[in-house]
């Protein structure tokens, strides 16, 4: 029925099957949308946040999707600036994932703020000293970049491409994509960093605060670096998932191996920096403020040392090691383990840098604050996932996302 829209030569599942799948995911989406409207109309009392947890699940989700969405800017940087041409075979998908992540982040922010209709004050009345201001500016600008990067792919749709203007526009945009990608990398560097800076500058919070370079605390650089390192893991993970769902190989192994290798080396270098940062913070920064490391990890079973070890060793050192070693990297199972661990690792890092900061008491007579999100918070956090699935499904079905798809899935000529 919709075959006119499907990329030429590509094989897609029948429309009814596709529709059923979409309907199921849409139900989840609607649940999230319902919760979103509850939050908008009734206010944030719908959440389990409180005055100790001004930042909670949503801010974590924001940071996490932006971190894993970092695959877009980093792949773009590698492809357009460092001219690693193989990556053209995955760049479209990286951009779509990035687009989903960043639009989700903006949506969550619009729910998370107490006065969504005044959200634009962050631009209009900007305080340039606030990390959050930098986040807002660079995030929105970078979202514009992602949109620009996504547009040519949309215009390459079989029907759209028939329109000469769209055809030319897509072509022209490809031509100057390097400039957009460079701008995107510049913006990403700052907003990823600023998101790290959000925590690092809170000098009232010894668990968060870091020393740094000029106005930028070390978390600024660690966040950028980790997004660049782990973002590609997520890109690979989503690619792998898409391949599993569609039952097709979509990207050639050499491309996957290359991205995995780059990601691996990024993770290794990041994790070394992270270990140094953690050690310096634990041995110098926190003690100078009167805190032992044990203060942050021994009160309750949730925020224990296990979290630190999981984040740095299990989800940092291990995937790094797997991905930089040729034999393990090229073993599909181990690679899958590594990219899953890597994705978990960066999400856990963002969790720690948002929620554990809020949980740790600072005044000696204050107590730990633990928090369990409300269903409205969970639903609105699941919403972007559902939205992402739907967008990927549509993109995959109707856009030439994977240049190698046809080559890899040629129907063998039937020998007569």
């Amino acid at each position, binding site marked *: 029925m919709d075959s006119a829209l499907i990329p030429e030569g590509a094989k897609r599942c029948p429309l009814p099957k596709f529709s059923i799948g979409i309907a199921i995911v849409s139900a989840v989406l609607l649940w999230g949308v319902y919760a979103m409207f509850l939050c908008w109309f009734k*206010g*944030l*009392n719908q959440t389990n*946040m*409180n*005055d*100790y*947890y*001004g*930042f909670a699940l949503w801010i974590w989700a924001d940071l996490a999707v932006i971190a894993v969405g970092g695959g877009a800017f980093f792949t773009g940087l590698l492809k357009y600036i460092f001219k690693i041409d193989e990556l053209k075979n995955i760049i479209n998908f990286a951009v779509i994932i990035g687009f989903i992540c960043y639009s989700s982040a903006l949506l969550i922010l619009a729910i*998370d*703020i*107490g*006065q*969504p209709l*005044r*959200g634009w*004050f*962050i631009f*209009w*009345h*900007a*305080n340039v*000293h*606030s*990390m*959050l*201001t930098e986040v*807002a500016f660079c995030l929105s600008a970078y979202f514009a970049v992602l949109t620009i990067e996504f547009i040519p792919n949309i215009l390459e749709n079989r029907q759209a491409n028939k329109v000469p203007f769209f055809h030319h526009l897509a072509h022209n945009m490809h031509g100057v994509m390097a400039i957009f990608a460079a701008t995107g990398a510049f913006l990403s560097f700052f907003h990823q960093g600023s998101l790290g800076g*959000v925590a690092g*500058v*809170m*000098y*009232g*919070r*010894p668990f968060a605060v870091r020393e740094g370079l000029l106005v930028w605390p070390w978390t600024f650089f660690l966040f950028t670096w980790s997004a660049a390192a782990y973002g590609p893991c997520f890109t690979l993970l989503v690619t792998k998932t898409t391949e599993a769902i569609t039952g097709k190989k979509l990207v050639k192994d050499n491309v996957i191996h290359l991205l995995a290798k780059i990601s691996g080396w990024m993770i290794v270098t990041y994790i070394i920096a992270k270990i140094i940062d953690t050690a310096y913070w634990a041995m110098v920064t926190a*003690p*100078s*403020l*009167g*805190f*032992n490391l044990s*203060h942050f990890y021994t009160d309750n079973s949730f925020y224990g040392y296990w979290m630190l070890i999981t984040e740095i060793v299990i989800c940092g050192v291990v995937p790094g090691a797997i991905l930089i070693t040729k034999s393990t990297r090229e073993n599909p199972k181990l690679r899958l383990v590594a990219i899953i661990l890597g994705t978990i690792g960066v999400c856990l890092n963002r969790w720690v840098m948002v929620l554990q*900061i*809020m949980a740790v008491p*600072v*005044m*000696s*007579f*204050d107590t730990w*604050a633990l928090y369990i999100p409300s269903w409205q918070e969970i639903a609105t956090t699941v919403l972007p996932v559902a939205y992402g699935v739907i967008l990927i499904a549509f993109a995959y079905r109707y856009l030439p996302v994977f240049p190698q798809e046809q080559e890899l899935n040629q129907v063998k000529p039937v020998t007569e």
Partner: protein
Amino acid sequence: MVQENHNSAYKFGMVIDLDKCTGCGSCMVSCMAENNVPFKEDETNKKDSITWMRVYKLTNDKPFPDTEVVYMPRPCQQCGGKGDHGHSPCVSVCPAVATDYGYDTGIVSQIYTRCFGCRYCMGACPYHARYFNWWDPKWPEGMEKYLSPNVSPRMRGVVEKCSFCYHRYQAARDKAYAHGNKDHIKEEDYQTACTTACPAGAIVFGDLNNPAHEVHQIVKPDPHPDPRNKHVAGKSRNPKIFRLLERLGTNPKVYYLSEREWVRKQGDNYLEGEWEKIKNHHGKASHG
């Protein structure tokens, strides 16, 4: 970007005598009544109960019968930030300049109509002095008639906090203008609602920069930075006086006074053995 802080300006501050404080709650209620703070059916979840002035209960954790208890009222600490340059933990992070540092008063303001409720300031404040309006403020039928026009009630979705009763400062300033002495607000003309309400007289409020003011005389703030921590300024030279979390370099303008050593120790965090080493140096007039 070091700004000239408090030169020929006021620096309003407070000292609270914890030995006099009885934990009676007058300051809390006076604050709520003065500043149109709402209330809701259940206020027992103290993590979402708006109390600009909150009274903490501190204990020495000793077993019966050696247990001791002290109450600690905690308004907004009106931090001067590192080096007392006005970059308070909350002010420096607010993305929309909805909270600002008054270099002429030392008071951290909050503009409710500007705030869009991102709550970054709440995360940045280690004192939990900032409160979010999770609910629309609602009063039982007719009760909104007691609301004071001096402070606007806050709408849902914005952050609020103690302002050192800034409207009282404005009134005092207007009075000083009217008397043709615009640069000199009298000590008794500007007192916060908690100060005047305290039945034990435990709170003393005034201009920390003015040697004639009682608060200055009690606190005796050291004009020089702390030699042990360059971020700390205005440390009290009275060894019985401390500030909350002074080591973080937030430079609060709320000082606490206690004769009890364990109380002073709880004002900050110390590694093992650290307190024993520094308690004797604590607040000493090293130079000046």
